[in-house]
């Protein structure tokens, strides 16, 4: 195995969950998310010789995954479908462990009441633990826009959760 192949296999094993999760939380459909994630890794294989260091690879994977997932959403809209607004029942593959916190499953589903931009920013902020400044750089978006998406997204999540989770808690 060549050094590049070994480096790629290592990156694939370490980042597959991250890439798949970002795609899944933006797209909301496991099949499409897997397809996007595979495409991102194929692209990584071609671009790997240009990427220097682990941080560079991680940042590259985040950025490309967000862009490819957003592209897939646009294509879906152009084909006549609508952006995912309902939680896909296949969100969790059968093999995936069920989240021990049912509340979080509900919150994840609520993400799809947000716009794709808000969803993307919240996923990067809370899944990837990125600061708004870093998200702005990664997505090539003004910082004020990132902050606005975050603020508005959280507000929407709160208001939706207040209504839907009330029933859940009661249940």
């Amino acid at each position, binding site marked *: 195995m060549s050094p590049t192949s070994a480096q790629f296999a290592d990156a*694939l094993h370490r980042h*597959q*969950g991250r890439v798949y999760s970002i795609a899944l939380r933006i797209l909301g459909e*496991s099949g499409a998310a897997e397809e996007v994630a595979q495409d991102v*890794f194929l692209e990584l294989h071609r671009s790997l010789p240009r990427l220097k260091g682990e941080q560079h690879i991680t940042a590259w994977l985040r950025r490309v995954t967000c862009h490819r997932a957003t592209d897939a959403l646009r294509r879906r809209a152009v084909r006549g479908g609508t952006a995912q607004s309902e939680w896909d029942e296949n969100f969790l593959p059968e093999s995936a462990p069920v989240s021990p916190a049912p509340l979080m499953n509900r*919150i994840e589903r609520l993400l799809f009441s947000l716009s794709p931009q808000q969803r993307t920013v919240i996923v990067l902020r809370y899944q990837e633990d990125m600061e708004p400044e870093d998200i702005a750089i990664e997505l090539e978006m003004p910082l004020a826009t990132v902050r606005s998406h975050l603020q508005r997204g959280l507000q929407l*999540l709160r208001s939706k959760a207040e209504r839907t*989770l009330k029933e859940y808690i009661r249940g």
Partner: protein
Amino acid sequence: MADYHNQFDDLERDLCEGLVARPAPEGFAGKVLARVANQEAKESLPALFLHWRSALAAVLIAVALVTTGFWQHQRRQRIAGERARAQVMLALHITSNTLDSILQRQIQHPVKEAQP
């Protein structure tokens, strides 16, 4: 209701803890590696073809250059040769004219032979 409100005060904290990366589907890495291998196989064929074409193009260019060079050399040689031949013919023509004019003069007038 109080519990409910407490939970949502901690929404951001819950997002931080709950939005962790989920594992990729079973066999995801295998599928990616298979696609990479497939892609490499597809790319290697055109590359091989490209190399073969480049080599052929280089050989053709070299042959063309050598042929052109040889042809140019031959052409220059032929031109120089034709020029040299023309010079010889001119020299012989002048020689013939000069000797002829001497002969004509000797025929017209009594010959005065040289006394070496």
